[in-house]
């Protein structure tokens, strides 16, 4: 009995301290997926995110003197678990990081009611750029439509696209269909033929039918919107069918080092557009090594830390931290609310100077968000696989956003109408 009382006491003490801790921290939960079919691509991202925030805790004592709690809630990429995690964390959370298009779709309409910002860096619904309509959603620093535009720009740099044939190999899922409106628009403007080839979720690992079709069609280029097991499937199949790798370009989620290591030298020339780049010499990497890795608090390893995805995780957390800082400065308080964080995320100004102040030199292009522009359209670099790692194959590129600004407004309007009543932030300029 005595033992039991002790236990109960301990539980109460733990409960009280935990309760007290909640009041003095930035609770930024991450709906992670370290289990399930997409774990291989999820783990490096989650590790990068967690390591950066843990580094801030260890080096600076959090952000503005308040510790950051980067707790993870495991979803396994399942939308059902996503609901569970969202409901579990939303009470205390400053931000939601849904990490899957399916979960984003479920959570997005609820944000107006719950008033919690969604941070979906580089994924989710592209019209989220329209900050007037999507007051609570952020897909900084670049959306899928930016990616589509930059890829086509890059291809245009290789020669006139008129009369060329481009295959859009994509996951048959909201994620894969996302760039189609812009690709169709560009096909019309530039005169190339666009051929979308979907890969079903069940066919991800075995794409022989799709690659047979590609062989028959003889396209000039293949662009790929792939994720998880689909990337490795497509890349090995491309090598097998001897498709010229230099004409094969993926979106940023299709540029995972481990997928290319499977084919090694044979994958040479494969490209992927990206708004992040691993820079092993950046000061932030040294700080992470010193404060997190050497302290044994990291789940990562050397090989993973050199990769594109780990560094992208760092950039994502850095964007979030910048949002928190901006909000703290504006409202003059260390402990911010989700509403204040929204203001912060709308007022991120990542200049070259700020990027190198943060120690992120060369890891992310400069960008700035505003109330009306929730993306920032940082642009990015074309990365190329040189047989053992990704290297930059282009200078900094930016998307020609004006070309599809009307499309953004149109799709955002459609969304708001389908979800009426949907409040629009009229206070925004421009």
């Amino acid at each position, binding site marked *: 009995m005595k033992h039991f009382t002790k236990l109960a006491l301990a539980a109460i003490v733990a*409960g009280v301290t935990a309760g007290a801790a909640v009041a003095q921290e930035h609770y930024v939960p991450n709906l992670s997926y370290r289990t399930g079919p997409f774990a291989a691509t999820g783990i490096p991202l989650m590790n990068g995110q967690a390591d950066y925030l843990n580094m801030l805790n260890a080096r600076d004592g959090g952000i503005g003197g308040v510790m950051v709690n980067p707790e993870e809630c495991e979803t396994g990429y399942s939308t059902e678990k996503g609901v*569970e995690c969202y409901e579990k964390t939303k009470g205390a959370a400053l931000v939601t990081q849904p990490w899957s298009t399916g979960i984003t779709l479920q959570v997005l309409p609820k944000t107006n009611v719950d008033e919690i910002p969604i941070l979906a860096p580089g994924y989710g619904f592209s019209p989220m750029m329209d900050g007037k309509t999507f007051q609570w959603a952020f897909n900084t620093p670049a959306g899928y439509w930016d990616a589509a535009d930059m890829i086509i720009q890059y291809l245009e740099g290789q020669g006139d696209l008129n009369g060329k044939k481009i295959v859009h190999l994509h996951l048959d899922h909201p994620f894969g269909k996302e760039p189609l409106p812009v690709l169709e628009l560009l096909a019309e403007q530039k005169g190339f033929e666009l051929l979308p080839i979907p890969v079903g979720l069940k066919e991800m690992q075995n794409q022989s039918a799709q690659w047979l079709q590609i062989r028959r069609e003889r396209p000039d280029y293949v662009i790929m919107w792939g994720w998880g097991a689909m990337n490795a499937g497509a890349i090995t199949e491309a090598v097998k069918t001897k498709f010229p790798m230099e004409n094969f370009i993926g979106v940023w989620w299709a540029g995972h080092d481990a997928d290319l290591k499977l084919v090694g030298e044979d994958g040479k020339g494969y490209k992927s557009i990206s708004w992040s780049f691993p820079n092993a010499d950046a000061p932030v990497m040294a700080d992470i090594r010193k404060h997190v890795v050497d302290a044994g608090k990291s789940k990562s390893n050397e090989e993973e830390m050199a990769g594109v995805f780990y560094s992208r995780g760092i950039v994502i957390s850095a964007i979030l931290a910048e949002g928190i800082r901006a909000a703290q400065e504006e409202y003059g308080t260390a402990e911010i609310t989700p509403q204040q964080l929204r203001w912060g995320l709308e007022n991120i100004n990542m200049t070259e100077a700020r990027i190198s102040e943060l120690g992120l030199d060369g890891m992310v292009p400069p960008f700035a968000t505003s109330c009306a522009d929730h993306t920032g359209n940082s642009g990015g670099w074309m990365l190329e696989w040189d047989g053992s790692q990704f290297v930059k194959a282009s200078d900094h590129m930016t998307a020609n956003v004006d070309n599809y600004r009307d499309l953004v407004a149109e799709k955002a309007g459609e969304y708001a109408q389908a979800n009426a009543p949907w409040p629009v932030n009229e206070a925004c300029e421009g």
Partner: protein
Amino acid sequence: MLYRTAGQFKTSYAADQALFPVRQDAVLLAVIAAFAWVIFPLIASEFTFQAILIPVLIFSLAALGLNILTGFAGQLSLGTGAFMGVGAYACYKMVTLMPWMNPIVAILLSGVFSAGVGVVFGIPSLRIKGFYLAIATLAAQFFLVWLFEKWAWLYNNNASGAIQVPNLDIFGLYVTGPQAASVTEYYIVLFVVSLLTYLCINLTRGNLGRTWKATRDMDIAAELIGINLMRSKLTAFAISSYIVGVAGALYVFAWKGAAEPNVFDIPLSFQVLFIAIIGGLGSIMGNFLGAILIVGLPVVLNLLPAALGIPLDSAMIEHLNIMIVGSLIVFFLIVEPHGLNALWRLIREKLILWPFPH
């Protein structure tokens, strides 16, 4: 002592045929109903509604639908997920084409469409049985999910290919969509589930239920005593698919709020089938017990380490969770192969004798 049936005399046929001839059963049900209708809505948090109460009820209903077909009529089906999808898409089309429609009516009507589809895919059951029929329903599963992806009209040509639940209200109170309060959604689900459960209990006790059971136990013998097998099997398919379709409409409209085609893929069918098997084939209550074990328990297990103050990784908890729930399933099936319902029946029989066993 607690469950003594001595002294409860039946003096009329009506009393003998009552839904709950034992008084304690009725009391127990009244207590559960009071919890479900009054106490839970008063004390539950939003998390409890969204992560435990609503999904458990919806999955119970889906398993109930499957149980009518597999447990009562003996027709194995692997297409439950797709039939849920038919219900969900039908409901979506109805409320977007006819926005004036009462959402609850739309949910109840959406089952009609899945019933129609169910009957069509049930026709092979007249010629094939057992595993072969399971393969035929598997074809339905693949075909329908493919259709949800390819037929853009079904999702109103949305760029994302997913369906989004609009905000719908009844007399100014939002009942579906992001504006709806969790407690409203809960009451809708509870109302529909209670209604359909009540109907099913009576159906399975009645003429139709007996016909189904006869078909299940030996179809040739059933045919010999004059049961029309075609009618028996097709009504089972129709009613089962109706319930499953309504469950699918609730799944999207009262719970998830948005769905892409692949959520209705085969893992959902398996999940519902597991609930029905672990709950007990050929039972009504088993579906609820099974859903609590398979849908509710993992959520509670996820919360445990944090509540006890054990610092564990979220991914580690998930791994442990899968192992614990998996071993529990194996354990319960070894202890009682006929499912949780049979386990409860055993406990109840022991309780009737307790504390003076023979």
